[in-house]
């Protein structure tokens, strides 16, 4: 990266102000200073460490599963071990990695910086929610260590409440507690966005990442309590024998699915909306153009967040839900696809007449757009009832949501990581390695999940330990792809860690970006801004012809550059 930046910006390295101590220095280097911090930036990093740990735990689990599936009769796992591994992968990836991934790390770090606030509204609550997350993680780890849980991440009743002999209680308690951590973070972000915006930072001057995190928080606050209640009912049934979903007493197992998907479909948007925010920041910066259709992008974010609540029944087309409800949910699911399509078109149009360069964040972001488009379009298949009837609970669905969740959210996570790494750590990473990893990740991803679409179409059911031999070729292809993908995920771990110790010092604004966060030194000082900045312009004023300069920051920061 350093070459690119200095080539694009000869002799424009902004001088650092030496007086203000960075947040990494202020407060000291002791472990206690980190564990008792209320600085949103440090809490963001605490989250980053925790979710990285869980990302690799869940990754190892699915690595074993993919290895096992190389042979149609299995290689080294028993049925139970297999079931526990894929459940572990799902539960940990969804609740301990994806849900907190971008909001709790980059959201925590950058939301206050981008709106010109000194911290989030309730700093101590912010720290508390990290500890609550750790408590939840403790339950989850106990469930894993004590032998695992075999319900899949969906906890369907009556299997989870009456029949499973896994550690359903510990796992459900873990997810239940993690929900409170999410809610606390969501409340904090909503209040911060409403109350602590800098003067002049009106709603229609907010960067799209802030809009995305705000919409995500609203979804978290309104959806997570329903998940908490549905898990609590399972706990009540398992622990106290209260028959809530027991069909023998007249209970309806489908009611659980309604409650579960009322959360878990919007949860998909909890995972993808922040990713969309990141991609908007990155695209506009590296295309050097104002984002195309800024207002439309905001309406699309809000549309996805709201309509996302109306569509949960499309997970239940074959469950015994009524045919009328099926049709209604099908229609609504097509509706929610419209704003997603708009976003893809807008990103593409942002490139038009731009001045595009391809640093690592941009390469990751372009990978995102490709994979998200492919994943999103297969969503149309699943919203069509007759198609869904055949491919639901097959590998087609598995491929679809991995395209959105891994191809989408995880790619965006890496885009964000590379975009903001210089700001967070004050160090530059190796641009060549970063681009190489991005390309490998894209290729590895496609070779893992494209075969799964084909398998799903031919009827390979998901969550199968042994399977008919005609599917073996696709499984082997997929497992090979997973190996490539695993390598690609290890690479950033290596070169980013290397950059921490040996990387060049990052300038305050290496990408010449307009956001307020880039107007502070790298890394930013403890309370972000000596004086609350004043915002007097739209975000993303990049276009050279417009302003007589290369770009126009959203505000001037004292003590910044």
């Amino acid at each position, binding site marked *: 990266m350093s070459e690119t930046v200095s080539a694009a910006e000869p002799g424009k390295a902004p001088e650092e102000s030496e007086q203000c101590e960075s947040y990494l220095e202020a407060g000291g280097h002791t472990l206690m200073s980190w564990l008792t911090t209320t600085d949103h930036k440090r809490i963001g990093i605490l989250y980053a460490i925790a979710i990285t740990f869980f990302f690799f735990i869940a990754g190892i689990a699915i690595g074993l599963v993919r290895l096992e599936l190389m042979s149609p009769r299995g290689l080294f796992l028993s049925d139970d071990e297999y079931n526990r591994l894929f459940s572990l992968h799902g539960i940990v990836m969804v609740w301990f990695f994806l849900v907190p991934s971008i909001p709790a790390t980059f959201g925590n770090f950058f939301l206050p910086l981008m709106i010109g606030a000194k911290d989030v509204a*309730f*700093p101590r609550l912010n720290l508390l929610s990290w500890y609550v997350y750790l408590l939840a993680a403790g339950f989850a780890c106990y469930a894993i260590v004590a032998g695992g849980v075999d319900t899949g991440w969906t906890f369907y009743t009556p299997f989870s409440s009456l029949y499973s002999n896994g550690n359903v209680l510990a796992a459900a308690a873990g997810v239940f507690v993690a929900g409170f951590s999410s809610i606390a973070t969501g409340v904090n972000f909503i209040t911060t966005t409403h*109350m602590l915006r800098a003067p002049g930072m009106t709603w229609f001057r907010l960067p799209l990442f802030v809009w995305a995190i705000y919409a995500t928080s609203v979804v978290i606050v309104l959806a*997570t*309590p*329903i998940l908490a209640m549905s898990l609590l009912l399972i706990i*009540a049934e398992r622990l106290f024998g*209260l028959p*809530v979903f027991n069909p023998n007493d007249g209970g309806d197992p489908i009611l659980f699915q309604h409650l579960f998907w009322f959360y878990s479909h919007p949860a998909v948007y909890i995972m993808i909306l922040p990713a969309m925010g990141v991609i908007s920041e990155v695209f506009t910066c590296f295309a050097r153009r104002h984002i195309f259709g800024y207002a439309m992008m905001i309406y699309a974010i809000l549309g996805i967040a709201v309509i996302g609540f109306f569509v949960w029944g499309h997970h239940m087309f074959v469950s015994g839900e009524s045919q009328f409800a099926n049709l209604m949910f099908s229609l609504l699911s097509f509706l929610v696809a419209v704003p997603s399509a708009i976003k893809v078109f807008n990103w593409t149009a942002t490139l038009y007449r731009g001045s595009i360069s391809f640093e690592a964040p941009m390469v990751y972001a372009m990978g995102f757009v490709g994979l998200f488009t492919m994943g999103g379009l297969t969503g149309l298949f699943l919203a069509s009832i007759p198609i869904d009837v055949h491919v639901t609970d097959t590998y087609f669905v598995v491929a679809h949501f991995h395209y959105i969740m891994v191809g989408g959210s995880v790619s965006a996570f890496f885009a964000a990581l590379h975009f903001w790494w210089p700001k967070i750590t004050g160090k530059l990473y190796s641009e060549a390695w970063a681009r190489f990893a991005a390309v490998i990740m894209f290729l590895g991803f496609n070779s893992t999940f494209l075969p799964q679409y084909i398998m799903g179409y031919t009827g390979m059911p998901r969550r199968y330990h042994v399977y008919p031999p005609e599917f073996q070729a696709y499984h082997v292809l997929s497992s090979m792809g997973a190996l490539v993908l695993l390598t690609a995920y290890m690479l950033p771990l290596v070169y980013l860690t290397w950059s921490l110790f040996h990387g060049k010092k990052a300038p305050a604004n290496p990408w010449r970006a307009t956001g307020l966060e880039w107007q502070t030194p790298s890394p930013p000082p403890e*309370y972000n801004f000596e004086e609350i900045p004043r915002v007097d312009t739209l975000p993303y004023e990049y276009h050279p012809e417009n302003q007589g300069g290369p770009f126009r920051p959203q505000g001037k920061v004292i003590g910044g550059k």
Partner: protein
Amino acid sequence: MSDDPSVVQFPWPTVARQREGVAFGMWTFLGSEILFFGGLLLTYAVYRTLYPQAFNSGSAATDIFYGTINTALLLTSSFIMTMALRGSESGSRGVVAACMLTTAAFGLAFLAVKGLEYAEDIDKHLVPGPHFPLHPPARLFFAFYWVATGVHAIHLLVGILVAVFLGIRVALRQMAPESTAIEAASLYWHFVDSVWIVLYALIYLPGRSGA
């Protein structure tokens, strides 16, 4: 007093802004809580629609005397809580401390009555299990009864702990009576009270006319 350093907290610029922010944050959280109980009410609504008669017979087996007493206790506690908030607005330390602690006392009384009621229910085998006296779908009603009253009791317990904690801190001069925490606590308390009012109407009242 408007920017009293003992009341205003980082990162708020002024007390007024902080008050607004705390009330808004609390309501956001309560919005979340409304949906939490909403999920529970949905199970009630669905099963009541499927098994109206069983739900009536389940309701008739609960003890309306305890339920009514408890509702009155909570309504009264809410009234006292409003006086605590009023004391906080006028800055009178004594009123805040006394009202917070009295509110907590009413909450404890509620839990005591609830305990008596639970003991009676267990005595009558109204816990879904081997000796449950009613027909199967009524077991769904009692599953709801135990989960709903249990979750409510836990919420109330949290409210009591908060009220006692704040009352003592204010009494010991460790906290200003104007603290924004008082308003947050009062909002939470009223909310828990209003949940009970709905539960009371759903659990105790139906099916009593003996038709």
